[in-house]
C-alpha cells in the first residue's frame, strides 16, 4: 500500500509539471499585455508601461521568466497577483471554502440521488419507469448549468420570494453566530440545487449500466438457482458490487465540478474561485491564473489517488502494489 501511494505520487509530479509548462506557455505566448492593462488603456506612456513590465519581470525572455517562476514555486511561493496586489496563495485560500461548500455539497447530493435513480431504472429495465427516468436524465444532462440557475432564481427568488437571489450572505443584515450560518445556508440552496441537478445524470448513467452488468453475472444466476429472493440478491450483492464504479466517477468528476461551478458562481454572484478565475482571465492576471490552475491540478490528482485507495478498500479483488 505504502509503495503504491509513493509510486502514484511520483507519477503525479511529472504530470503536474507538464501542465504547469503548458499553462505557462499558453498564457505568455498569447497576446494581451498585463502591464498595459495595469497602466490603464489610453493614458499610459510607453515609458510607464515599460517600467511596469520591468517591475513584474515581463521584460526578460520567456525561459528566464519560467525558471524564476519554478524557483519560487519550489519554495511554496505562488507569486503576487497583478490585479489584487496580494499573494496568490492567500487569495485562493480565502475563496476556496466558498467554492468547496458549493462543489462538495452538490456532488454528494447528486451522488446519492443519481445512484438511487440509476438503481431503480436498472431494476425496471425496459419498463416505462426506466424509459421515463432515462429520458428525463438525458434532458437534465442537456441543460446548461447557468441557464438552469437563472430559471431557478426567477422562479424561487424573484416570483415566489422564498429564497435570496444571489450572494453568499445578507451583508446588510450583518448577522452573527448561528443566524449567520442559517443565512449562508439559505443562500446556498439554489446554487447547490443547480449544480446537483446537472450532476445527477453522471451518477445515474454509471449506476444503471453497472447494475445491469452485475445482474448478468454468473453469481447472480447461481443465487437465483438456489432460490434466494430477487430483492435480497439485488440489495445484498448486485447493488453493492455495482456501486464500485460510482466511486471512481466521484473522484474524476471533481475537476468537472470546479469548472461547472464557475458559471454557476457567476449567475449567483457567489464569491468563489470560479468567479475569480474568470475575472483573472479578463485582466490577464498570469500569476493568479497559474496559481489557480496549479492548485486545481494538485487537488484533482490527489482526489483521483484517494479514489483509487477507497476503491481498493471496497473491492478485495484489487491489490495495490
Amino acid at each position, binding site marked *: 500500500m505504502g509503495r503504491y501511494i509513493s509510486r502514484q505520487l511520483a*507519477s503525479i509530479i*511529472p*504530470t*503536474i509539471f*507538464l*501542465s504547469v509548462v*503548458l*499553462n505557462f506557455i*499558453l*498564457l505568455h505566448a*498569447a*497576446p*494581451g499585455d498585463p502591464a498595459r492593462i495595469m497602466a490603464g488603456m489610453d493614458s499610459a506612456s510607453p515609458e510607464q508601461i515599460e517600467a511596469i513590465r520591468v517591475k513584474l519581470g515581463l521584460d526578460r525572455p520567456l525561459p528566464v521568466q519560467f525558471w524564476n517562476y519554478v524557483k519560487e514555486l519550489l519554495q511554496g511561493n505562488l507569486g503576487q497577483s497583478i490585479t489584487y496586489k496580494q499573494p496568490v496563495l492567500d487569495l485562493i485560500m480565502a475563496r476556496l471554502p466558498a467554492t468547496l461548500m458549493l462543489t462538495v455539497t452538490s456532488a454528494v447530493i447528486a451522488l446519492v440521488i443519481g445512484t438511487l435513480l440509476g438503481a431503480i431504472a436498472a431494476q425496471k429495465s425496459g419498463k416505462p419507469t426506466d*424509459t421515463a427516468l*432515462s*429520458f428525463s436524465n*438525458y*434532458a437534465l*444532462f*442537456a*441543460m*446548461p*448549468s*447557468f*441557464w438552469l440557475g*437563472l*430559471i431557478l432564481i*426567477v422562479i424561487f427568488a*424573484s416570483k415566489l420570494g422564498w429564497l435570496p437571489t444571489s450572494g453568499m450572505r445578507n451583508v446588510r443584515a450583518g448577522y452573527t453566530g448561528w443566524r449567520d450560518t442559517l443565512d449562508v445556508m439559505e443562500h446556498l440552496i439554489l446554487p447547490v440545487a443547480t449544480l446537483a441537478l446537472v450532476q445527477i445524470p453522471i451518477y445515474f448513467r454509471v449506476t444503471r449500466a453497472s447494475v445491469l452488468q452485475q445482474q448478468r453475472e454468473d453469481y447472480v444466476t447461481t443465487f437465483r438457482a438456489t432460490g434466494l429472493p430477487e430483492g435480497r440478491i439485488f440489495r445484498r450483492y448486485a447493488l453493492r458490487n455495482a456501486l464500485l464504479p460510482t466511486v471512481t466517477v466521484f473522484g*474524476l468528476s471533481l*475537476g*468537472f465540478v*470546479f*469548472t*461547472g461551478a*464557475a*458559471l454557476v458562481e*457567476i449567475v449567483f454572484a457567489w464569491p468563489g474561485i470560479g468567479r475569480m*478565475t*474568470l475575472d483573472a*482571465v*479578463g485582466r*490577464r492576471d498570469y500569476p493568479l*491564473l497559474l496559481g*489557480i*490552475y496549479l492548485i*486545481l*491540478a494538485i487537488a*484533482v*490528482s490527489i482526489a*483521483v489517488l484517494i479514489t483509487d485507495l477507497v476503491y481498493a478498500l471496497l473491492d478485495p479483488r484489487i491489490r495495490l502494489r
Partner: protein
Amino acid sequence: MSQLPLSTDAALASTVRRPSRFMAFWKPFMASKMGPIGLAILIFVAICAIFANVIAPDGPFALGAPRLLAPGSEGHLLGTDHLGRDMVAQLVYGARVSLVIGLVAALISLVVGVIVGSIAGYYGGWADLVFSRITDMFLIMPAFFLIIIVVATLGSGIMYVMIVIGLTAWPASARLMRSQALTLRERTFIQGLKALGESSPRILLRHIIPNGIQPLIANASLDVASAILIEAGLSFIGLGDPNKATWGRMIYDGRTTILTAWWTSVLPGVAIIITVLGFYLVGDGISYVLSPRSRKVQA
C-alpha cells in the same frame, strides 16, 4: 452452361437475403427507444439552421420592432428582445453556429483521437507511455478553463472556439480507440496479416481503424452535444464570437429582461436543451445498435 443460372440464382439470393450495411444499422437503430426521437429532433434543428436565411431574410440582428414584444405580437412569432430584434431570426441563426461548432469540434476530436489512440494501442511501449502521460494531464486540467484561456487570449472567432474545443475533447475518444486497438492487434487476422508481411501503417489504416471505430461514432455524438454546451457557456461569459447570434449570448442578453420578458432567456435555453438532447438520444440509439442486446432485432 447449366451452371450459370445456378450461380446467378445464388448471387441473387445472397443479395436479397443479406441486408446492406446501411439497413443492418438502420433497422435496429429505428427499433431503439431513443434513437428515432433524437433523429427527428436533429432533422428539425438542421432544417432550421439550413434555411435560416429563408426563415429570417433580414438576418438575426435586424432591428424590426421598436421595442420588446411578447410572443405572437405584430408578426413576431416568438416575440423580440430588448433591442426589438426578432427572436425566431436569432434562434435559427444561433442553430447554425451551434451545429457548425458542435460538428466540427467533434470531427477534430474524432480524427485526433483515432490517430493517437490507434497508434498508442497498436504499437504500445514508448508511444503508449507518452500517450498515457498526456491524457493524464488532460484529465487533471479542467478543459473548460483551458478553453477560456485560449479563447480569451487568441480571440473568440468561431474558428478558434471550434478548434480549441476539439483539441481538448480528443483524449476520451483516444482512450476508446486505444482499447479497441489493444484487443484487435491480438486477433488472428491481424497476426496473419503481420505474418504475410503487411506493413504496420497499412494494417492500422486498413484494418485496425475501420474495425475499431464503431464505439467512437456513438462517442462523437456525445462530443457534439458537449461542444454545443461549452460554446453556450463561452458565449454566456462574453467569450463567444461577437459577430454571430449565439444561443449562449441570447441567454446572457436576456438576463436583464427576464423578469418582464421571460422568453428572451428561456427560449434560447430551450433551443440548447432540445438540440443537445437530440445528439444524446442519437448517441443512445447508436450504442443500442452496437450492443449485443440489439442482435435480436438484426436477425
